[in-house]
């Protein structure tokens, strides 16, 4: 069985349906990319423009970052696909445990007591 592991293929075994599906998927990916670029620009504008107060801009750009994060994860990295159960579990745990880590390192340093 090892023989064919290093063998290139002459053609693809994809069925027609699969090919169409893939083209669709590709379009979705490109749309997602366009949207990501858009919200990135939005984030930069929110901070760069004088009109928006800092106190409002911060939660807004954090939200945008979260959106972009999920887009990247779910679309570019395919977490939305099936058979990604374990990767999902690992990432969800990772993010879930990151939250207390970041929060405590940020505010629980003893300078202010909570």
């Amino acid at each position, binding site marked *: *069985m*090892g*023989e064919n*592991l*290093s063998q290139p293929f002459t053609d693809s075994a994809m069925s027609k349906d699969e090919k169409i599906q893939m083209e669709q998927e590709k379009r979705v990916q490109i749309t997602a990319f366009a949207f990501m670029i858009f919200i990135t620009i939005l984030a930069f504008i929110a901070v760069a423009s004088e009109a928006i107060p800092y106190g409002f801009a911060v939660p807004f750009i954090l939200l945008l970052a979260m959106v972009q994060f999920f887009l990247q994860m779910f679309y570019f990295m395919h977490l939305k696909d099936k058979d990604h159960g*374990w990767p999902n579990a*690992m990432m969800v*745990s*990772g993010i879930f*445990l990151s939250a*207390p*880590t970041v929060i*405590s*390192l940020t505010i*629980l*340093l*003893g*300078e*202010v*007591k*909570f």
Partner: protein
Amino acid sequence: MADTTVKTSEKSVLWDWLTTVDHKKLAVLYLLAGALFFVKAGIMALFMRIQLMFPENTFVTGQTFNELITMHGTIMLFLAATPLIFAFMNFVVPLQIGARDVAFPFVNALGFWIFFFGGLLLSLSWFFGGGPDAGWTNYVPLSSREYGHLGIDFYVLGLQVSGIGTLVSGINFIVTIVNMRAPGMTMMRLPLFCWTTLVTSILIVFAFTPLAAGLALIMLDRVFGGQFFITELGGNVVLWQHIFWIFGHPEVYILVLPAFGIISEVIPAFSRKRLFGYTAMVFATLVIAFLGFMVWVHHMFTVGVGPIANSVFAIATMAIAVPTGIKIFNWLFTMWGGKITFNTAMLCASSFVPTFVLGGVTGVMLAMAPVDHLYHDTYFVVAHFHYIIIGGIILGLFAGLFYWYPKMFGHHLNEKLGMLTFWLMYIGFHMTFFIQHILGLIGMPRRVYTYLEGQGMATMNMVSTIGTFIMGAAVIVLVINHVYSAYKSEKVTVRNPWGARTLEWSTQTPVPEYNFAQTPQVRSLDPVFYEKVHGDGNMKPAEPLDDIHMPNGSIYPFTIALGLFIMGFGIIMFNMDNPIIPPLAVTIIGGVVVFGSMFLHSIKEDHGYNIPVERVKEELDKEVG
């Protein structure tokens, strides 16, 4: 492309062990390395206890004592307990899930060698002006560039290197358990030891990464002048404590969960009953792991993070008692109504239960944040964790050792000597540590190299030290047992000498390199037991007898680890007074070895080799004959 011929050429034994990727051989390596480090750290404990035997004793100085406690704690946790646990995980997990090897045999070897060279790097500190001396917690600023000496660099880089080894091994176990299970082995048929291995590995992935980050910060502080912990320049010393304990608390569960797993295998085997409340046990494991990440501030109650934070983390800590309690009672009720055989393995496993509770309940006492202001950094805490670690982890490891030894080495350990070890250990341990609870309460802080006369601490410390000698005797008897049994014990040739219940007992003893001639078909929890009752006593094969495909050995794990070792040493050399060789050169050489080996490994496509079916048949026949 693949090399289909059988490797029959006789390699030298040494080369064989250096290049092996066989999980069973790596298990033996882990066992050996872990045992050596355990004895080393145990002897340090002995020295510490001798120093504390009398008030104002001068056996060692304060400096040496600090080096001893630091190395004792660090070695015990990272280089003794962890590899001993890994030894069993390596040996047992692939067998229990019916796999031929782990998912990444190469990475498995890599993990061992990196861990081993990391340990070596840490131990080298003795030859360069003394060990690290800031406690295993390595708090800054005592360990920062201003107050810590060269030993700290060995701590930081030694742990950094060995941590990488542990991390890659953890990833490997996760993938193995998720992807390599035999047909029919669903997650809810997974033996509990595999479950705890899986959860422990997940904890490793999430806990050792922050540790790596934290150690990197200290290294940057000490070698490159980073200002993370220098308060005058905007740094903060509490930062390190958070990072350390974000790692440190999960670390203690990393150690204890596999012990739980071992207990969950041994108790059913010798009670001849299935594990009581299997599902609850699995979920309790998951809940413990999850909560284990939410409680780290309980080590920092006195640091001054504030009352709300303290309360929240205190309550979260207490909550861990609930899932742990579920486990305790499930074990008790597994024995209840069973037919218990008491041999050494079962003796250790069953007495684990009450002893662990003794340590656990003091943990809950510590979790009461305001009262912890009393206990914190006293011998009460020392007593708490040694109760859990020795009454829990060490007893668990002993149980695992006596239980799996016949499978690993093809002969039993001597039972009489085993019993002697157990009783000596048990008595010595209670003598050493029970009294330390009281010592803590009458005002003995931990990490003190001496105490004064007339404070009422002398007698109790003496008792404690005598207990340590008894424990030392137990360890010596255990070593004698190994040697004795190797010569005097009868060979085990049956597959299932204990009448145990899980898959590892369904293959030949000693286990062939491919583990299973045919991958078994699993039909139930405790498959071996199931087939005995509902089938003909043999596992049904899931595939016809055929050629078996196995991975090739490789020297690269060893060289990559060696390169990391050199790199780490090079970085340490930056802080040496008069390095003979330029540190940068050493670091770069190390880097070249690491990346060169990785490169060479990656460009060579190695598809392993095939064991022809004739040889498999031959070995099966040999067993019958």
